[in-house]
């Protein structure tokens, strides 16, 4: 059988089983950990980026103020956007490795274990 998207979940856990996992405490904890981390961080970097854009548009004088030689506030602000992007990337990667992956791995093992026959069938899918 080849994948078409329609039969994707044939033989997998049933809707009830998915809902059972979804309602369970471990899954709630996983979802909570993901959301309390990524939502505030997304709000922060979007606001920080927007601040940069608005300063560039409405306060060009401020951005043109020299800092050192020909390097001005605008260049520094622009480079800081690079710095925050790299830092957020690192923070998220380490948070996900430490706080998200262990729960996700455990839940996945349990779900795929309960539908063992389905899993082997699914693995043959693309062959």
């Amino acid at each position: 059988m080849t994948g078409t998207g329609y039969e994707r979940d044939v033989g997998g856990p049933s809707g009830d089983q998915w809902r059972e996992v979804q309602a369970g405490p471990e899954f709630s904890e996983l979802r909570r950990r993901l959301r309390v981390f990524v939502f505030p961080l997304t709000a922060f970097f979007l606001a920080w980026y927007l601040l940069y854009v608005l300063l560039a548009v409405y306060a060009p004088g401020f951005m043109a103020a020299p800092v050192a030689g020909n390097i001005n506030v605008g260049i520094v602000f622009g480079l800081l956007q690079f710095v925050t992007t790299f830092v957020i990337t690192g923070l998220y990667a380490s948070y996900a490795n430490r706080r998200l992956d262990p729960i996700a791995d455990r839940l996945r093992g349990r779900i795929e274990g309960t539908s063992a026959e389905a899993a082997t069938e699914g693995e043959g899918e693309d062959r």
Partner: protein
Amino acid sequence: MSEINPVLNMSIFGAFVAVTLFIVFRASRNTNTAADYYAAGRSFTGSQNGFAIAGDYLSAASFLGICGAIALNGYDGFLYSIGFLVAWLVALLLVAELLRNTGKFTMGDVLAFRMRQRPVRAAAALATLAVSFFYLLAQMAGGGSLVNLLMGIEGEVGQAIVIAVVGVVMILYVLIGGMKGTTWVQIIKAGLLIAGALVMTVWVLGLYGFNLSEVLGQAAAQPDGKGQDLLAPGAKYGENTLTQLDFISLALALVLGTAGLPHVLMRFYTVPTAKEARRSVVWAISLIGLFYLFTLVLGYGAGALVGPEEISTAPGGANAAAPLLALALGGPLLLGFIAAVAFATILAVVAGLTITASASFAHDVYVNVIRRGKDSSAINEVKVARITALVIGACAIAGGILAKNQNVAFLVALAFAVAASANLPTILYTLFWKRFNTTGALWSMYGGLSAAIVLIIFSPAVSGSETAMIPGADFALFPLSNPGLVSIPLSFLLGWLGTMLSKEKADPDKQAEMEVRSLTGAGAEKAVAH
């Protein structure tokens, strides 16, 4: 311009094509199933895919367009780099892993997961084709101006022939190598591009005693340029209230567009797990960030060493800044290398776009809309995808011949606006909002897509200004060049409104399955073992 040696340029490019075609042939030996053709058997590692993402993303727009924009307009060109980079955080934090866990081959897989299949897949495919079309146009326009500059080929016919040859090579990559071949081309290209940019950056900095301030000062000191204005924001967009709004609109489209680009999303399916997808984004952000730091030096370096006068009068205009800088630094040999890399860039990006658009048509439209998911073999699906790739390749060649001399960074910004309006709201809603339903998805996708396209048609980018695509006519009723400021919020609003107004309930079983799968990776598509 007499120093430009077309034979040398073409030989270096020819060598690149020969080497990559050989690799593509080798990679194609294992391409049998749909998962092989669309997703390279999901067998790439995170770092390989990170390079391929960088190769896919650092398009001609990034390299030629941004360097040119910084050289001529200074600081305002820098915004492109920052927007293009920060945008990756949306993909990293909200989209990449969840998408890898729920989808199979296309963006439509995720968008339609818990919705009514046929209408949502049709909308997703339409949006994919629209975004790919704008992006293709931008790349081929870049190709047109490069031909002009680097191959020493004058005249419409000669240029058209070269664009056609580039198009045919691209089609070969896609048809023979599928996603695996295309990915290798992108990996090689990313390595060459970043290495080339690194060499030029160190060279420019070396000429000025490794003092960035000195480079900036020299660029500002050019007599025929914009002087000190080059170093602060406002040189291009600071004129009046409208241009300021246009700048904000552009900024919004850039930061929200990336995570809605179908060809970027499809790259996440080429790795075996969500963890590898995360790793690939971390690699991609590092490589892309590094590259954009280089463009800052290269753009101002071109302004300082080549000068705005020579850049704006060169064939290809602003897009010629980076190649001319290479010529000024290392003579014809470095120019030949950079020119070949720029061509390879266009080739690799166009191949990635073509495979995405053809996958979306074959997988979403042919299999799931036309055949309703019934009795279709993978062989058939891949065959349809290959035929579609041929058609799209032909369109790309025609478009490239027509769309010369537009600033490619600007054209790409339009593609980002369409992606951010048509795709991103639905992706985020379906992943994070339980109540979201089919009506909301359709309203948001069709509403965002048509708003973006209609506003572009009636914008000063198309008519009513000297730099417009149709300079003779004037039907520019909408004052902004970039539609993002209006069309993106509108699309979010329509998704919410459609969901609230429709009586249809979200399917709770499917919602549970999607949410659990997206977060845990249970039941996700596995790598193909060869």
